[in-house]
């Protein structure tokens, strides 16, 4: 793999940037792999990367039906934070946060991780009590978190309407300074490039149409384009389509797939240097390095796989944003899109073994999977390598929906569902 550096940039400038190496190969699939990862999004690629890097398992294929990072990895609003309430979730997301902090160096690929802080606003007394509880829980778990009052919020975001005359006045917020945003495409590409360099085969434009199960164990996958590919272990990391793959394996998941929409505005001059989220008026906004406002809000209430949503949801989202930032009322929106999120009843992911031996699922990240990308890949790779779930992943087994040990994170999830 050609290493990227400032020196390299100068060197390539001399020959007009015509000799850059392709950043990954485009191999024909082999007949057999030790591990097949179904789904070439951020989580799948991270899993492949950590399998190769940490566990020396390089006979790995990532099978993607479209192109790498073309699903929710390229459709989210890029927010990274770890201020979750319960110990299980907080440890998992904080594990990811620590990996984020060294990720660009680790991958030799700039993921543009910018720790610009995240505000979760409170608009009534109960919001503020919940915020205090969550901030205290975060601090006990070693996660940086503070409670701010109205004045403190106003100082960080001078353009936000924090006056007492609004319909839902801002009473304060939780503030995680280490949180921020990262460039979503770069995360997928960085993991893909680094995994490819260690020998992982990235197989795009290949759809898995069946899971081949013999004697209660997985032996391979059937693909539409390349026929049967055998595997020792299979990890499914397919977000919204997890239910479809589970059905191929002969079991059900406690997931429902919903469209989640986001939109970006026309590029404007720097106005917002942090991330603002509000569960009560229900919207979140940040500004990208390009200058566009990146805006998101709630899922569409109905089940859907259509990668698009309804107009009323967009309208409610923008109402919330304009309520918080009247100054944005005349900013025009440029693009809008939808992704398919796999929501779990407790707003926490599923990292689990399945009733089929050697078949593992990493799904149910719902509306908040991007922030966990490196952590999710790291613990899922360890679980696949050892055949036993990593201690950080163990509480997120499918079994919790039968034992009742749910990890209810609806309060800390940014999106109501």
């Amino acid at each position, binding site marked *: 793999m050609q290493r990227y550096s400032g020196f390299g940039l100068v060197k390539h400038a001399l020959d007009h940037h015509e000799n850059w190496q392709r950043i990954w190969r485009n191999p024909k699939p082999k007949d057999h792999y030790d591990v097949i990862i179904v789904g070439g999004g951020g989580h799948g690629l991270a899993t492949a990367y950590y399998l190769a890097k940490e566990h020396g398992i390089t006979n790995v294929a990532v099978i993607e039906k479209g192109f790498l990072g073309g699903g929710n990895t390229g459709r989210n609003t890029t927010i990274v934070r770890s201020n979750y309430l319960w110990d299980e979730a907080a440890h998992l997301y904080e594990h990811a946060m620590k990996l984020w902090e060294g990720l660009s160096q680790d991958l030799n690929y700039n993921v543009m991780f910018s720790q610009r802080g995240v505000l979760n606003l409170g608009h009534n007394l109960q919001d503020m009590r919940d915020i205090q509880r969550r901030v205290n829980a975060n601090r006990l778990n070693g996660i940086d978190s503070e409670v701010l009052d109205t004045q403190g919020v106003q100082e960080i975001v001078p353009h936000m309407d924090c006056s007492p005359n609004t319909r839902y006045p801002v009473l304060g917020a939780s503030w995680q300074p280490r949180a921020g945003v990262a460039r979503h495409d770069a995360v997928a590409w960085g993991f893909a490039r680094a995994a490819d360099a260690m020998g992982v085969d990235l197989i795009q434009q290949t759809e898995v149409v069946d899971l081949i199960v013999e004697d209660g164990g997985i032996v391979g996958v059937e693909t539409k384009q390349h026929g049967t590919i055998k595997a020792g272990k299979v990890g499914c990391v397919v977000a919204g389509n997890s239910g479809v793959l589970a059905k191929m394996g002969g079991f059900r998941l406690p997931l429902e797939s919903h469209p989640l929409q986001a939109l970006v505005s026309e590029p404007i001059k720097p106005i917002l240097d942090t991330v603002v989220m509000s569960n009560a008026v229900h919207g979140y906004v940040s500004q990208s390095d390009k200058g566009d406002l990146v805006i998101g809000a709630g899922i569409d209430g109905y089940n859907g796989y*259509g990668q698009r949503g*309804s107009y009323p949801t967009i309208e409610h989202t923008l109402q919330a944003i304009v309520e918080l930032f009247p100054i944005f009322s005349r900013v025009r929106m440029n693009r809008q899109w939808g992704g398919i999120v796999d929501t779990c009843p407790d707003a926490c992911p599923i990292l689990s073994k399945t009733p089929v031996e050697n078949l593992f699922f990493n799904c149910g990240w719902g509306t908040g999977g991007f922030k966990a990308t490196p952590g999710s890949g790291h613990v899922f790779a360890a679980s696949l390598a050892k055949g036993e779930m990593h201690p950080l992943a163990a509480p997120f087994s499918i079994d919790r929906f*039968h034992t009742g040990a749910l990890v209810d994170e609806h309060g800390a999830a940014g999106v109501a569902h």
Partner: protein
Amino acid sequence: MLHIYCPYCEEHREEEEFHAKGEAHIARPADPDNTTDTEWGDYLYFRKNPRGLHHEMWVHALGCRKFFNVTRHTVTYEILETYKMGEQPTQGADA
């Protein structure tokens, strides 16, 4: 925006008057005291979530406030039929 026919109001209305309420025809276990954890968990949390035709409940929240059922395609979002509670669908795999 979806345009939904309420079988009670007998009119098409806009999506904003309605709320989706998830999978339809889920029967509560007849004898809750004697169900296993597996049966109870399946009843509470596990859903079909099909990529295709889906029978689901909606409520006409800003209208008659009644619940009813819809057969809808989850990729095209096309609504094939709406029918009252207690009735059975005429479209779909388990029709």
